[in-house]
Every structure is written in structure tokens, then in C-alpha cells.
């Protein structure tokens, strides 16, 4: 597969990278290249300039900060998956990273890259939504924060401006009584491959009842989506299996479910309910 001709720069600082993006309309940021390179090779996407930020220092760490975990733009799926901080503070994101691609993809692709790519069947967006993450976007003009709820606009479309780099994703750390989880049905069955349907959930238990819940879906519609009806139905219940089942029935409400090679609308709607329930069950178990 032969991409169209393009320019390539590998800046050694973030400012240089931001300047390159600013100065070249249509330029595209690359970290792992796991999605960008195939699109270019298929000539489905032909940016005139690729800005490889792989050599920019300071973007490859996971910071266990006060109240949140910050994952830099160059943190690979494998690092997110094996981080103790992510596992304990934002379990759904660690699980999503573990279930992404294969070993090579996890060693090369990045958590922020997967979020910015906003694939409808990717794992990270559902986890980021359920966890109420914040995207930190930087441009030559400065920095802004975008709530996960506002970040996923459409298929392969995020709220990032063309001259912005997603430099970090900040995930609130789970406090006592809060647990999160991610699960999916993969295209080859089990948890393999892209999600036919998947769900992430975060639940806070307080005195034997659900005081807060967020549920997000992937794979079923035009974009990663919050399942607010399910979350609302669960809050105030005891979080029992029956309560979960009842709440999960609302999973696809307000979601535009689309058929693809892996599922009919009916099946995907059903799976949204099944995986919302499975994610909730695991999140509640983790909430202790």
C-alpha cells in the first residue's frame, strides 16, 4: 500500500510541534501511527504533513497526582495497561488498554492517540467517558480542557481543533467506595479485536446504595456515548443484580444504534444492555 507523497517532521519540542501544526493547514499529529498510517496507505486520508511527536520530551509519563491520574500523549497502551496507578485509580481505563489490539499494537499505540482518533468501536473512549476524564488540548495559542462528555463529536471526529495536540488525559482517581470496569464482546468473540459492543462503568457506593454512576458504550452507534438513562436508573438503588438488570434495559435509550457486519440493530441494542450490566456488576464489585 503506497500513500500519497507527504512531508514529515519530528520536532524535538512541543512548541516546535505546535508551530508546525499551526503553520501547515491539514497537518496531522502522529504518535504510534497505528490508525493514521493504515489510513494513509489506503489513501483514505492524505495529510500534506505528518508531525511525529514521538521525540518530544515530557509526554511519556503517567503522573499519579492529587486527585487525578494524568496520562501523557506518548504513553503506550502497554504502559497504561500495566500501571498500578491506573489499575487502582482508573481501573476501566487499564482494562480497556489491556483489551486493545494485540501485543504489537499495545506496544506502539498510545492511549491519547486512541482517544483523539475517536473510533466508534475503540476501547478507550468508553472508559474515558465513564470515568469522567478531562482532555488537555494544547495549541500554539495556549491550553484548554475538554470534558470527555464533550470530546467525542462523531465517528472519527473529536472536539480537537486541527492545530491542537491532546497532550494529556486526566482521569479522576477513584476514591473509597468507587469502582470502575470495562468489558466488551470482540469481533472474533470473547474480548478480542474491536468491540462489537462494549461498556465501561463507574459506580460509587455509599452506605449500601448507589450514590453515583456513569456508564458509557462503544461499538454500537455513531460515536462513543454515555448511557445516561441506565446510570440515572441505577442511582439510589442497592446495586443488586436485579437493580443492575433493570437499569441496563435502558442502555441504548437515546443512542443511535447502527448495524454493521458484526451485528444487527436488535443484536447491538441487546449487547449494549448485556455489557452495561456486566460493566456495572464489575464496577460495583470493585467499589467494595
Amino acid at each position, binding site marked *: 500500500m*503506497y500513500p500519497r507523497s507527504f512531508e514529515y517532521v519530528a520536532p524535538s519540542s512541543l512548541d516546535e510541534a505546535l508551530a508546525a501544526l499551526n503553520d501547515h493547514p491539514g497537518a496531522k499529529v502522529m504518535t504510534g501511527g497505528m490508525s493514521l498510517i493504515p489510513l494513509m*496507505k*489506503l*489513501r483514505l486520508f492524505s495529510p500534506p504533513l505528518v508531525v511525529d511527536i514521538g521525540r518530544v520530551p515530557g509526554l511519556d509519563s503517567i503522573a499519579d497526582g492529587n486527585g487525578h491520574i494524568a496520562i501523557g500523549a506518548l504513553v503506550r497502551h502497554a504502559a497504561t495497561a500495566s500501571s498500578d496507578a491506573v489499575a487502582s485509580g482508573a481501573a476501566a481505563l487499564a482494562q480497556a488498554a489491556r483489551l486493545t489490539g494485540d501485543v504489537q499494537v499495545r506496544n506502539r499505540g498510545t492511549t491519547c492517540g486512541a482517544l483523539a482518533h475517536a473510533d466508534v468501536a475503540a476501547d478507550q473512549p468508553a472508559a474515558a467517558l465513564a470515568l469522567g476524564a478531562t482532555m488537555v488540548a494544547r495549541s500554539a495559542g495556549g491550553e484548554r480542557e475538554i470534558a470527555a462528555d464533550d470530546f467525542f463529536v462523531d465517528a472519527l471526529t473529536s472536539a480537537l481543533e486541527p492545530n491542537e495536540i491532546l497532550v494529556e488525559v486526566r482521569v479522576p482517581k477513584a476514591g473509597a467506595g468507587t469502582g470502575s470496569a470495562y468489558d466488551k464482546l470482540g*469481533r*472474533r*468473540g*470473547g474480548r*478480542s479485536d474491536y468491540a462489537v459492543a462494549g461498556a465501561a462503568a463507574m459506580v460509587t457506593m455509599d452506605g449500601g446504595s448507589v450514590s453515583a454512576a456513569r456508564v458509557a458504550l462503544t461499538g454500537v452507534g455513531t460515536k462513543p456515548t454515555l448511557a445516561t438513562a441506565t446510570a440515572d436508573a441505577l442511582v439510589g438503588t442497592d446495586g443488586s443484580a436485579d437493580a443492575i438488570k433493570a437499569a441496563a434495559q435502558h442502555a441504548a435509550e437515546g443512542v443511535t444504534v447502527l448495524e454493521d*457486519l458484526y451485528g444487527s440493530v436488535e443484536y447491538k441494542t441487546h449487547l449494549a444492555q448485556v455489557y452495561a450490566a456486566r460493566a456495572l456488576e464489575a464496577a460495583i464489585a470493585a467499589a467494595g
Partner: protein
Amino acid sequence: MTTTSTSAMGGIVRRKEDPALIAGKGRYVDDIKLNGEAAAVFVRSPFAHAKINSIDTSAATAMDGVLAVYTAEDTRHLGDLLAQVAVGSLRPLLADGAVHHAGEAVAMVVAENAYIAKDAADAVMVDYDPLPAVVDMKDAVKDEIKAHEDAESNVLLTWYSHDWWPGVFELEDHRPAIAAAKERDDVVVVSQEMTNQRLIPVAIEPRAVLADYNSGYGRVNVWSSSQIPHALAGAIAKTFGMTSHDVHVVAPEVGGGFGAKLNVYPDEMLVVFASKELSRPVRWTETRREAAYSTIQGRGWVGTATITGTKDGEILGYELDAIADMGAYSQNFTVAIPVLGLYVAQGQYNVPLAWQITCVHTNTQTTDAYRGAGRPEAIYYVERIIDMYAAAIGMDPADVRKKNFFKKDEFPATTAIGLTMDSGNYEYNLDTLLEDVDYDGLRKMQKDARDEGRYIGIGLSTYVEVCGFAPSVLAEFGFGWDAYGLPTSFSGSGLVRVNPDGSATVIIGTGPSGQGHQTTWAQVVSERLGIPVDAIRVTHGDTFESPTGVGTFGSRSAAVDGAATYEAAEKVRMKAAELVAHMLEASAEDIQFADGGAHVAGSPGHTVTWAEIAEVAYKPHKGPEGLEAGLEAHAVFSPGNATWPFGSHLAVVEVDPGTGDVKILRYVAVDDCGNRINPMIVDGQIHGGIAQGVGQALFEEAIYDENGNLLTGSLVDYPLPTAGDLPAFELGWTNTPTDVNPMGVKGIGEAGTIGSAQTIVNAVVDAVRPLGVTHIDMPLRPRKVWDAIQKARG
């Protein structure tokens, strides 16, 4: 004269080829670079069926770095692509006036590099008039839309089991007897329409070809990722009016073939053409995406299988009425693939047979041999319907199978279509499997699990395969390689040379793509001569090295070329014995070969090494008077029959009824391929074969929309099995050697695939049968299993 060796046949020897392959040092076509290379890229049709009004190549031709743009105008004189069984529409090298499947090559751009060539290909303007496409093979039979606008019919022919080779076999037509049996009161008739879906072969190395036509030498050198280098050389010679000995084809390392590289392709002819026109080496490397359009596909049958049998398990008739999708063009074997299915139509069962299969053209990519080639399809139908029959009469599926087997004392056995199966011991093989897995215990486990609400299924399949094709009666059936100017037909070739330093060189006529021939053939020769495996170098896939050969496919290499090598080594041994007899002043009959040398029986202390033997061989004055100098022999081997391996497979699966997700808990196979040369390599062949069968059962499907667009042309939408999707396979063996070759080997390359797809489907259906499901068409993706459960529940 006897030989003993620690690395003899039957031993586990680590593969000699692996250090290079594992370390990334293997040399594939794309690793071979020539000075002055140009690159070819093809312009491909976006339509499945369209008239070509005009092709404007001017913009492309004007681009910097573009050397030439060729269309059918330039290549028409070369004729259509050669096909062994030239029934139906043959493929022009470049589409000529019309396209008949999406992705068909319309023009070829040659440029300084592939990037420029691709840019130029995008600039070639083709004016099409789209025509209606016929995509579904059931529609094709109706002939309302013609895949080829000028053809009389989409239907090429129908193969009938009782009349498949008129004039050679006088066969009984079993249809009247089966029809009569259906009227009996004590009989049940079980019938099911089933699809054996079309698959896309995915070798890890896509196809690639590099051609260097040199007018100074009057020769063309071609490197191609091919399973059949000799046939390719013949086809090039025939197409370009050359002789085969002026065409040097090398298949270097080949990264997987699976039958998809058992074809001569238009691109192989076209790069030779371009090299000749431009006086430069020209390379084409298939892209992964392109492979779904430029390489053949496999399977693609739909048919209704019927068993008529008594309520106590005696089968009175097995029928299949099927359609096979040939795609748009007939290539190498295309319309003969269903015949390979017919060879094993009745599986292991001695039952009346009535098969008919209709071959049709559609506006899709051509189908041809894909691992198993007709045999997986055939075994799928008989093994699925026998399971349904067992369920219908409430009999254990193992017992029904045993009741209808060909019995051990019936071998050599004649099938319903008149072929003779060399050897078999089916009941012993199945019993071995059932004992290995504790079948009764498994059934009890299944029952206990069901009581707990878990849906565990146990699936069983037996199979018989036919392989080791050779110039027996089978090979004369329309595909003797005459079309490619290969007069040797299917004969195997082996040349064994003891070098002056006492090492050995073996040159064989095969074209392996990962089967380990460098190791296996070294073992065969080592076993005969006692030369260590490490001192034996094996060369294959080179038409100037090996005088004859036909390549590697159809599980044939060991049984045919292996046997030739065995016989060549035997000739060398006879001559070496004379040399040693002279050196040790003994009689040739008393010479024994062992441990890297030879000695006189009874005097193992006095040994001559192979280097010493070779010195005498290459210095005739030191040898016996009148004996020709040198120490090498060539043998051509032509067995009298194919070989007929067989086996029994079993899978245990669990189905999640909430999602339709299938998990394979166990996979157990007991195969019988006669003697095994290297059991580790044989295990590896079974492993890969099972993985491919599981891929068909659970994941893979080439899906075209109603306009003939391939929706699954990338690996994102064509899921392949990975190691992570599969359990650790449990393998067992029985050994029923054949007498059609001196080694008693049968062939194992396709057995795993032939035995496995229906094993998985039988297991999944067994798991959800309590929910009312009786059949699900492959691939059993979760959505289909879930849909079937919903449907059964109403």
C-alpha cells in the same frame, strides 16, 4: 547393506530453515533487489460488471518517472491467462472491453518506483458503463443476469457422482434406490440446506513477482512467491513463445500459500511483458488490500444435504445437491475443485451416494484451490448432515458414524464414484480418539453442565482426504498440467548428490511455503545414507536446479517428491556400496552405512567416512575399474494411486446464550497419515490446518454486497484466527501406512482444515440444541448464534 542413523525418518529434528525465518533473515521476493528495477501498479475496476468505453492514459503517461502504461490493447496478443481446465470464461491478462469483477486489473502502470506508479494509476481515467451484476450463486443459476454479458448462461456444467467421468468409470446411479428407500416406513429423511461460505486466503506474505528479461542471454529470470515454479516457467514460455529452458523461475522463501499461490496469475505474465518491452527488471508486489481482489478466493458452495436412513442408524443414501461459485473467470483448477470434493463425497461411510454440483460464474473474484480445495466443503456437508441424522434418530453421533464406516477388511476399498482408497482403519482411529478423551465422561460432564445452566457442546467429525496426486488415473482427469506445457504432469522429482567433501545436496521439484522441506528431505536422505542431517543441503523452488517438478500443493510433496528423493538416495547408496566395497576389499552386499560413514558388516571398527568415499567417487583412478565417476542420482517418481489419509476430530465448546459468544474449551484430533517423517512438522501442519478450519467455522467470510463490492477486503473486516482464539490442541495418532510409495507416507498438509470446520459447528449446534437450534451457517459469529437462538425460541 543396511543403514542406521540417529536422524532417521520418524525422528523429531528441528527445522533447518527456522533460524533464518525466525530472525528475519529469510529471503523473499521483496528482499531480492536488481539494478535498474522498475515497479508496476495496477489500475483496478471499481465495478463488478461494466463495459469499458475508453481508457485515457495520457495524464498518467505524462507524469515524471512513469515509464509506460499498458492496457489490453498492448497485451491482447498474448492471449488469455492459461487455465488447466479451460471450461467457462478465461481471464484476459488485462480487462478487454469489459470488467467482470470488482478489482479486476484494467491497466498496468510501470514507473521508477511503486509510489510514482500508484500516483499515475490514480490518474488513469477509465470510462465505464456499469452493467447489472450477478453476485449470489443462486441468482446465477436463474440466468436472469449474465456475469459475462455475451455468454449464453452462467452455468458451466454440473458434476454428477454417477457420471463424472464417462467412458472411464461405469458407475451405478444410486438415485432410484435412494428414492425407493425414502418410501419405507422404517426410514427417516434428514435434509438441510447449508452454505460453505467463500473465504479469502491470507498468506502472511502477499504475492510478489520480479521479472528480468535479458535479450543478451535470451532468457528471462523470474522470482515469484509461487507454489508452482515449474508450471509458471511453462506458462511464461508458452505465453511468450519461448522454451522452458530459457525461463528461469525461482520461488525463494514463500510466506504461506494455502493454494492461493497454486495458480499462474496475469500479473506474473505482465511483469515479464513489461520487462521485455522496457528492457528493465520489473517488480510487482501485491498490497494486502489488493490481495483480496488479485488473488483467488476459496470455497463458496451452497447446497442441500440429505441422509435417508433407518431409525437404527443404517444410512441408505446420502445426497448433495449443490451450487459452487466459480467467480468471474476459470483459472488453474477452478471448475475442477468440486471434483476434488466428489473424490471424498461420502466421507468414511460405505453408503449409496448421489451428488450433483453445478458450477456457475458470478461477478466476483475467481475461486480456486484453498487449503483442502473441495474436500473441506465435501466433508463439511456429510459430517454436518450425519450429525443431524444422529440427532433425529436419537443415536449417539459416534455410534452412527461407526455403523456406516468402511470396515478395515474392506481396504483397498472402492468408493461410490469408482476410486480405490489405499488403506484405512476408521473404527480404530475413532475409538482411539474416544478413549483418549474419555468420551462417556465428556458426555456426563456436558449433562452436569446443562443442569447448571451452562451450554457445553461436544462436536465430532471424521474425515477422509485424498492427496499425493500423481499421474495416476486421477491426474489424467483434465488437469495433467498440459495447458502449461509441463509434460511431466504430476511426477515427483528428487536429485541426490554426494559432494566431494562428503556432504550432500538434494534438489527437489517442490515449491514449499513453510512446510519444512529442507529438514524433511534431509531426514529422508540421512535415513538412506547415514549422512547427518546438518550435512545435507536441500534446494527447492528453482526450475534451473530441478529438472522437473510441479510444486507443493494438495498434501503431495512427501508422498510424491519425497518418494522420488528416497529412490534417488537409494540409487546413490547402491553406487556408494560398490565404492566402499572396493575401498575395503569386501563385497557390496556386506557394506553397512551408519554414523556418517560405512563399514563392512561385522567390522564396525574399520569405517570409511563419506568424505573418503566421495574422494574415490570423484577420482575415478582410485575407484573400481569401469565405474562411472561422480556420486549422484536423479529419480522421478510416479505413484499408481493417490493416498487417502483420514482422522477423527472432537471439539468441546461453550456457548454464552446471552451473547452468542462461542468459546472453544478443548480441541482433540487423532489423525492418520501413515508413517510420519518428522512428527513435529506433522503436528505443525495439523495445528495450522485446524486454525484455518476454526477460522472458517467462527470468523471468516468474504462478503459481497448486491452490486458485487467486496465488503471484507481488509483485515479489519476479515477477522483471522489468532493463537489467542484457540486452545492448546491435543493431538493423537494412528498409523495405517500406504503401499503406493516406498515410505508409506500419505500427506498431512490439508488434513487439519478438512477435519475441523464442521467439528466446531457440530459442537456449537450440540451446545444449543436444547434451545431448539438444529443448524447455523458458518461463520458462527456471535450475532448468528444469538440470532439462531432467538429464532428457535420464537
